[in-house]
């Protein structure tokens, strides 16, 4: 006789506006952008990683989701201090303009001007897959562990279109919560600019590629300002992140990270 009272899979399906919410989580860590001459692989990675981070950070980000039949761009302004405090204001598209997010430690709020409400976002909502874009929250939450969670091996130096680069292999440590079996990483030798990352599964197939480009000076650092993510399963889909007007390590007024700022229109 039939007993069908199980709708869990439906329940467990995902929400994905968290795209932005998750960005708030990955904030910035301490910058250590000095160079020395004789380096270990770990040092190369550390320098490369810290290039993209600062004590504080502001900027204008564009997230472009490309599908075979459509394309969507979200543009937002971004402020962060360490990993504890972040603020986002959406500027494009028009329909979502003025939506703001605030994260203080583990708490998060969203303000929606059209209904004039501030909504507290439960942390469980951040733990869903990241539908629209190709990124998973794993990428974002865990990025800072590039150094601690992997063992590293320098495969050599290779010539790329962006110049001579270190070619590094990263293998997750057994206990590290990383689903990839292996990463290949390219870092420009001259200035530690990360150029490209390729992710492999346990059967040795590449599953995704993140390519960095448009390397230029932003906020006093030479960094890639365009990140392009392609999954091998869906070669005609793409997620692109473009960074503009970046500043690093500039003082940010504490009033940015307040609930009253959520409702403030500019």
């Amino acid at each position, binding site marked *: *006789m*039939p*007993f069908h*009272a*199980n709708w*869990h*899979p439906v329940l*467990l*399906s*995902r929400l994905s506006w968290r795209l932005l919410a998750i960005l708030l*989580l990955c904030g910035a860590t301490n910058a250590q952008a000095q160079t020395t001459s004789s380096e270990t692989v770990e040092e190369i990675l550390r320098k490369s990683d810290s290039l993209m981070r600062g004590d504080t950070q502001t900027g204008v980000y564009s997230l472009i989701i490309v599908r075979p039949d459509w394309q969507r761009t979200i543009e937002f302004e971004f402020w962060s201090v360490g990993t504890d405090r972040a603020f986002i204001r959406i500027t494009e598209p028009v329909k979502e303009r003025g939506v703001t997010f605030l994260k203080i430690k*583990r*708490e998060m709020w969203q303000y929606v001007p059209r209904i004039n409400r501030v909504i507290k976002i439960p*942390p*469980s909502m*951040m*733990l*869903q*897959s990241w539908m629209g874009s190709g990124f*998973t*929250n*794993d990428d974002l*939450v*865990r990025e800072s562990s590039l150094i601690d969670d992997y063992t590293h091996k320098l495969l050599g130096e290779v010539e790329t279109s962006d110049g001579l680069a270190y070619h590094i292999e990263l293998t*997750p440590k*057994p*206990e*590290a*919560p*990383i*689903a*990839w*079996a292996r990463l290949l990483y390219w870092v420009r030798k001259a200035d530690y600019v990360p150029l490209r990352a390729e*992710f*492999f*599964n*346990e*059967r040795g197939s590449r*599953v995704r590629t993140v390519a960095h480009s448009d390397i230029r000076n932003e906020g006093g650092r030479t960094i890639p300002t365009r990140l392009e993510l392609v999954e091998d*399963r869906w070669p005609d889909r793409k997620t692109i992140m473009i960074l503009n007007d970046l500043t690093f390590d500039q003082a940010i007024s504490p009033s940015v990270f307040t609930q009253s700022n959520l409702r403030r229109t500019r």
Partner: protein
Amino acid sequence: MALLAKIAWRNIWRNPRRSGVLISALAVGVFSFLGGIAYIDGFSLQMVNAAIERQGGHIQVTGAGYHQNPTIRSYVDRKDEVEAELLELPDLRFAPQVRTPGMITSADQSAGTVIIGVDPDRERTVSGIPVSIVEGVYLSTDGADNEVVIGEALAQRLNVLLGERVVLMANDLDNEISAGAFRVIGLFRTNSTDYDKAHVYLHQRQARDLVGYGANQVSAFTVHLDAGQDLSEVAAQLRASLPTEELEILTWRDRSPLLVMMSDFMNVANVILVIILFSAIAFTLANSFIMVIFERIHEIGIMAAGGIRPGQIRLMLYLEALFIVVLGMLIGGILAFALIVWWSSVGLDLTNFSEAMHSFGVAAVLYPYVDWEHVASGFAMIFIMVLLSVLYPAIKASRFKIVDAMHHV
């Protein structure tokens, strides 16, 4: 009386064919009845239990408010004490579980899932999952390594094979996202693909780390009853022995009205099936007894002519019926018992009969169940029915005019 009994006994063996017909009718009747209800009881029990298991067991002991809002924040705080209390109750199968919604990620894909941390040894006593492993093995007792068992359908969705790596993520009590890497050591397949797509099992030790529980904390104890145990009685015992102000003790009937509606509806249909089976047996027996007695009208007429009083004839006929009923029930009962014992040990694997049922796995192996109450009432009814069916012809026969009876062929 003793004399009559002797005559009755002798009568039975005087015409072995006739008695054989009656005794075999009874034996076949009892055999069919027992076999039939053992099937019906067994099947419904199996189906209801499968549904109950999927929904957390016959009785769930959780933190207060868990059913209403199942989050990691409602938990059983003193696991060891609860476990000790549960052990006090005789023959209770139970298992602790840490349950949380979360996410499982492979290199290729990620999916929302229910993460269930178990005590593998205890879990084996309550769950069908350990025996539904179609590839690999179930979790090891000690939980020393980071291992998970996931549904076959989920593995396909994630594109992972046995031995490959997955990451589980969940929110912990501090609202942090916590994550861990695990090896897939086993794939299970239940008869519900939806279930298989959305459930991940791991050792409770790692599950506790994931959600930030201490060694003495779990989400729930799932308690499974054997067929003979009374749901509300056990629930009452649990409520009496456990601290109910901090714990919630709910039976499946409290938790899922939909399941209650279905299983009750099915039970009504089963009662009707039993009545139908019983009618068939009743009809057969009545028919046989009536025929036999009509066959003997001639003989009864002669007895009456020989001066035996109608009352004595009736008594004799009753005694004969009694002997036959006892013999028949004994034979039928023994045969049915043997069948049920054999069937319980081997099960009836329907996948042998139909290709279409291969995908059902262990769910397609049916076992009988003997509900002694049903058996006893069946026996009693058969007994009464036979006496009733003898009543009419016996009265009629004993009152026949001698001449009529002698003429009767």
